[in-house]
């Protein structure tokens, strides 16, 4: 009986240590559990695959470095897909650190022969949240006169004919915090397709907007990142992490079961002693 009750009072530090050890194990020695592709990823992939070479996509890098693990695999996989399809990317960040992340990604493709100013442009960080977005969608060259590299925005060929957000063919945002309705609201006059890449926690919140058609696609967390990697036949770091994910969930569920066994035992005990 005592041992059962103890199951309910395991020191949290024990749980913490177990988590580190058990998660590390599949990362060192992958188990290779199969990952099935969800309808979310299929839908988003289909929409993005429908873009033509030369189309322009605005990408809002709306996440700080701290959130990269969950959302960046999506961004990287989609960027990869866009580059292969020769779709042009206009990068912007409404979170300060997002600018640095976008810069890193763009530079890595520049190193592979893509041209800055033609295949992509980086408009840098724009402070002011939704207020700044409202100014941005109405008049991009006015809201962002100079790009991240300090050059006048209008001097680059990619910006030709791009005045409002509606002049682009698609808008994507990747975020750890932005509400799904934000971009929908700001671009509502153009009804342009919007793809949202969000951290896992925000999935349920995005779902109503996906079902109402206000979002053209929704990618949720590292899992969708892994699925996108599989869809575009370029398995990467997200796929590798899925095994560890499974173990982590199992561990927590085992602890929840422990907690409840102890809870019921305690209640039984109290009943028996007449309390």
């Amino acid at each position, binding site marked *: 009986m005592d041992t059962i009750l103890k199951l309910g009072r395991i020191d*949290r530090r024990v749980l913490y240590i177990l988590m580190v050890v058990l998660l590390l194990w599949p990362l060192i020695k992958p188990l290779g559990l199969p990952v099935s592709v969800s309808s979310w990823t299929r839908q988003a992939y289909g929409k993005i695959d429908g873009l033509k070479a030369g189309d322009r996509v605005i990408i809002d890098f709306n996440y*700080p470095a*701290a*959130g990269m693990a969950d959302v960046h695999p999506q961004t990287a996989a989609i960027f990869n897909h866009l580059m292969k399809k020769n779709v042009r990317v206009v990068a912007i960040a409404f979170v300060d650190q997002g600018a640095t992340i976008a810069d890193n990604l763009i530079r890595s493709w520049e190193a592979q022969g893509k041209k800055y100013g033609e295949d992509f442009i980086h408009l840098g960080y724009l402070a*002011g*949240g*939704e*207020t700044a977005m409202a100014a941005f969608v109405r008049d991009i060259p006015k809201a962002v006169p100079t790009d991240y590299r300090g050059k006048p925005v209008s001097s680059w060929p990619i910006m030709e004919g791009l005045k409002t957000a509606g002049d682009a063919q698609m808008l994507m945002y990747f975020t*750890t*915090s932005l*509400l799904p*309705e*934000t971009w929908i*609201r700001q671009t*509502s*006059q153009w009804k342009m397709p919007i793809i949202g890449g969000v951290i896992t*926690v*925000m999935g*349920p*919140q995005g779902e109503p907007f996906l079902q109402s058609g206000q979002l053209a696609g929704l990618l949720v967390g590292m899992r969708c990142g892994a699925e996108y990697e599989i869809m575009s036949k370029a398995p990467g770091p997200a796929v590798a992490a899925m095994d560890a994910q499974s173990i982590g969930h199992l561990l927590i569920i085992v602890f929840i079961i422990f907690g409840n066994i102890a809870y019921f035992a305690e209640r039984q005990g109290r009943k028996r002693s007449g309390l």
Partner: protein
Amino acid sequence: MVTGRVTSFVILVVIFAAIIYNMQRAKTRLPQMRRIAGLDAIEEAVGRATEMGRPVFFTPGMGDITTSTASETFAALEMMSYTAQLTARNDTGLIVGVAIANVYPLSEQVVEQAYLQAGRPDAYHDDMVRFLSPTQFAYASACMGIIEREKVASTIMAGRFLAEAMLLAEVSSQVGAISIAGTGSEYQLPFFIAACDYTLLGEELLAAGAYLARDPVRLGSLAGQDWSKLLALVMVLIGAIMVTFNPKPPLLDLLKK
């Protein structure tokens, strides 16, 4: 009018009218208010801190006042004002941790004014409202540090929160503080429900200002809000019945204008 916003405008006017009408009506007939446990608990939280001789920690979250989540921050400031009046009267310590620069001067005013109103301007000091950092986890780390080091007896978290919600709530529970949390962020709320003693769900937080003030006009505004929700409920019901019999009822298009 801007196309696509006609219906919004009409509905907004209807809601405004409902609220203003009820504000007027409340002056003669006060509406009955249901209890909101999380707001009633503020008194308990301050009382416990007073008994233990330890401070109350209040944080208005990471929402700025210039974005669409501004209302949650305003509601948090109302709660802050109420909390500060209680701590002033009871001579209990109060620490307010602020993340957002725009919220910092507002919080200072709110707390200072609350101490003035409670007749204790002498008890207010500069160290009460602390600007921490707008960098999300720097703010979280500072809050965690304060909660642990100052051995707070109660933690009140109200406003817009992001991932730091879990850190603050769990640390509070680890130090054994009473925790009250409220947010309109549906994806941080689960963490608060799991880790906090009292949780204000969405609109319950937004009602805080009116609920705590208890004056007729503001209670009236809550009655007006109830009418608006009733409107939504009736619209949902009628709409669903209509589409059941006719997949494309003409009235539904009105909502898209």
